[in-house]
């Protein structure tokens, strides 16, 4: 099939071609076709495979953490300790492993799972197809952005395995802890590799962002005005702005910290530091809070990089399965832009306990609280999108409903954390852990699942099993809540984050049964993910074959073959309709694809 369509493109491409409509021949050798490919669809699949593999790695780290918290320093069940902690005495978690696992779990999930999956995989796959382009504006840059992310992944694994110990200063890696090997064994080579990895992954992110922006601005098909773009493209556009503007600050922070570690500078090290009786001569004149400002100036917008694309995916999927337009298209786009804009002026709310001037804290608090307004506009519009629909309960739709409801919980718990005095108590407790996971797992990951089930037929030409999709969804959804809802209770009870053994605290004793409860659900949640992997594998081989538009959707990607040919569209489509024209009164079909001929013509 592929060779046929390739030949097709080759023959007719130049005949039809005019201006930007030029079709290049597809690469013919294995290396340029599947490895060093410049095809956005191949790169997207590469990002997906990397992201999903890392999802399992990050999940394994989480399970090891959960076991340790529920049963501190007890051997893993089923003799697993002898495999995982083979060299440790007693085959239980060595004390230096806990901070390393905490650090690796956060780092892997943020930088190597959610960002690559949402922007790398879905962003790459969907942007050109949805705007009616043949590829990204800069295909080579696109390839580079993937091939810079790969060494970043290798570096982070090397950091984890580094001989003196993996990085153990948290995904936030605050100096001086992260700067001084004397303070933590992981802060030597492990932390250096971590910083190099983050630098590379940031570089990849910036290249991706520039490419997406250029593509969306310049390569839209005729008639694809900004207000006819699907909301996923809006979301990815806004996310790319965040990536391009915020990531350089993270790059700067990691370079400065690398200088402190390798070149003897002291950007972040004040005078008089003494670690375990050893004075640090290099230290002087620096300020550890500078790093926190730089880090959060990136990482708060990064939280929106993690969730905005998922909002976009969900806003694309919901109309398909409610058979009606998204409610309040413009309000949806503007509210995403507002969330992103506000995201730049709220970073200080991560630092309320660092001795901040109360008036500065108040301004950060107000800015943070304002985010509740565009967020509630989005929630209201998603509900409005259900109202009056004809709702089809497919697996992607269930994942979207989970996204919406979980995002509400994550958003609402954020309100407390924004309030300065309340945050004095909740900062660095499990309340924050619950909050971030409701947004990033309940939101982003369910958004990713929705996107996976929804676009799998487009990518592969086959549908995933609905039955196993629903099994996976319900197991994940119930166990997700079983894991993260009780973390609110732990937070209210005053349980600190990142502690290897809660049982030594008397005030946490009444909460320990919750820790066991959470761990049980975490195991279910972890193992449920094998269902989706099996579903992907089996569906690739034996899934029901589908045509161009199995979901009866309206956006442009559903007008080309599944899988789309190398050049996406033989003829660049002309767009005549808004993105979600479902159930238009007086029409025979209940959907109008964007490139259908104009109605009045």
């Amino acid at each position: 099939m592929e060779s046929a369509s390739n030949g097709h493109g080759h023959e007719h491409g130049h005949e039809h071609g005019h201006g930007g409509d030029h079709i290049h021949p597809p690469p013919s050798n294995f290396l340029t076709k599947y490895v060093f490919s410049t095809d956005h669809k191949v790169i997207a699949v590469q990002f997906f495979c990397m992201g999903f593999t890392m999802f399992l790695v990050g999940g394994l780290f989480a399970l090891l953490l959960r076991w340790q918290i529920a049963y501190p320093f007890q051997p893993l069940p089923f003799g697993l300790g002898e495999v995982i902690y083979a060299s440790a005495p007693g085959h239980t978690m060595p004390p230096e492993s806990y901070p390393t696992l905490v650090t690796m779990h956060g780092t892997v999930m943020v930088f190597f799972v959610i960002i690559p999956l949402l922007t790398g995989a879905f962003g790459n796959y969907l942007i050109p197809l949805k705007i009616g382009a043949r590829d990204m504006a800069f295909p080579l840059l696109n390839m580079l952005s993937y091939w810079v992310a790969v060494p970043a992944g290798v570096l982070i694994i090397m950091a984890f395995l580094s001989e003196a110990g993996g990085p153990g200063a948290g995904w936030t890696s605050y100096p001086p802890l992260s700067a001084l090997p004397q303070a933590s064994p992981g802060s030597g080579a492990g932390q250096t590799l971590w910083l190099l990895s983050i630098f590379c992954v940031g570089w990849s992110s910036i290249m991706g962002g520039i490419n997406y922006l250029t593509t969306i601005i310049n390569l839209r098909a005729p008639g694809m005005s900004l207000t006819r773009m699907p909301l996923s493209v809006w979301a990815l556009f806004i996310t790319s702005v965040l990536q391009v503007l915020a990531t350089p600050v993270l790059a700067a922070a990691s370079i400065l910290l690398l200088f402190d570690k390798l070149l003897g500078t002291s950007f972040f090290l004040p005078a008089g530091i003494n670690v375990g009786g050893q004075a640090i001569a290099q230290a002087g004149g620096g300020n550890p809070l500078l790093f926190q400002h730089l880090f959060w100036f990136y990482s708060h917008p990064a939280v929106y990089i993690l969730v905005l694309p998922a909002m976009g995916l969900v806003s694309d999927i919901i109309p398909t399965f409610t058979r009606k337009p998204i409610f309040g298209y413009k309000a949806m786009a503007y509210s995403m832009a507002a969330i992103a804009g506000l995201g730049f002026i709220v970073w200080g709310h991560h630092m309320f306990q660092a001795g901040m001037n109360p008036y500065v804290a108040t301004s950060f608090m107000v800015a943070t609280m304002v985010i509740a307004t565009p967020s509630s506009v989005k929630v209201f519009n998603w509900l409005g999108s259900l109202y009056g629909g004809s709702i089809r309960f497919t697996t992607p739709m269930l994942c979207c409903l989970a996204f919406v409801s979980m995002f509400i919980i994550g958003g609402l718990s954020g309100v407390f954390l924004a309030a300065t005095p309340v945050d004095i108590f909740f900062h660095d407790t499990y309340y924050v852990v619950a909050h971030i996971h409701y947004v990033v797992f309940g939101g982003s990951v369910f958004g990713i699942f929705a996107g996976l089930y929804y676009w799998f037929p487009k990518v592969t030409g086959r549908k995933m099993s609905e039955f196993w999709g629903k099994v996976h969804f319900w197991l994940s959804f119930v166990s997700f809540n079983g894991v993260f809802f009780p973390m609110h209770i732990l937070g209210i009870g005053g349980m600190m984050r990142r502690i290897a053994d809660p049982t030594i605290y008397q005030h946490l004793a009444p909460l320990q049964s919750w820790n066991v409860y959470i761990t049980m659900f975490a195991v279910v949640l972890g193992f449920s993910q094998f269902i989706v992997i099996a579903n992907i594998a089996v569906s690739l081989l034996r899934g029901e074959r589908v045509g161009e538009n199995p979901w009866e959707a309206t956006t442009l990607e559903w007008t080309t073959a599944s899988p789309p040919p190398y050049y996406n569209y033989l003829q660049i489509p002309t767009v005549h309709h808004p993105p979600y024209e479902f159930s238009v009164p007086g029409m025979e079909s209940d959907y109008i694809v964007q490139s259908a001929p104009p109605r009045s013509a």
Partner: protein
Amino acid sequence: MSSENRQSNVLAWSLLVVLGGGLLTVLLSYSPPVDISVEGHRIDEAFGYTTRLITIYFAIVLFVMGYCLVRFRARPGHSAEYIEGNQPRHLLMTGALAASVFMLIDMRLIATSAHDASEIFWKFPTGKDVVKIQVLGQQFEWHFRYAGPDAKFNTADDVETTALLHVPKGKPILMQLRSKDVIHSLFLPNVRLKQDAIPGRQTQLWFQATAPGDYELACAELCGLGHYKMRGQFIVDEPADFEAWIAAQLKDAEEEYDADDKSANWGWDWEARN
């Protein structure tokens, strides 16, 4: 077809049960550590008020969602309505909801929080009855220093403890925090407070305890391998017991004092700052 009906009904209501059940669980299991401070109730009240309000909002959202999922499920003879949601009345509804969230939840919380942060929690007490304590964070212990009878720090009559904080009931306690090595964060769950100790900087924290007893303190900021073990005792005494305790410590302190031991004399001149 009726089985499909039933299926979507079941789906919709299980979604509601799972979420509603979770919500009830948290409301029923809501148990913060006992509050023994004069001002801690402000945090609990702001939390309680907001919890009640957002629970109402969330319940409404869940109800509307459940209603829509059942009422508008795909079934024979039912088709979707073409609603774009950009009519003036739709925008008005959207705006009204957003405004109600902002005015009911946010503004109330902002008003109390701005006051409580700048006038209560981060407005540090002055006056003669203030008990001053210097705190030094170090991997993986908290050190506390009391000025002793001369009211000056870093002198022979200082009382120094490790992983043990004694404070008298009923008096404002003012602490200055520094760190010797990395960032730590002093966490006193029972007075609802937490304050980072940062190398190269000095931070402050104050509270007034109301109930004598034996409580706990911890480090809330990841500070290295022993972070989880950086706990300490937090004891609130009757004022007379506190004086007695200081007096008892003083004898040891004077015997052990060595003016040349710089690392033992880690205290600093107390400078009031607000």
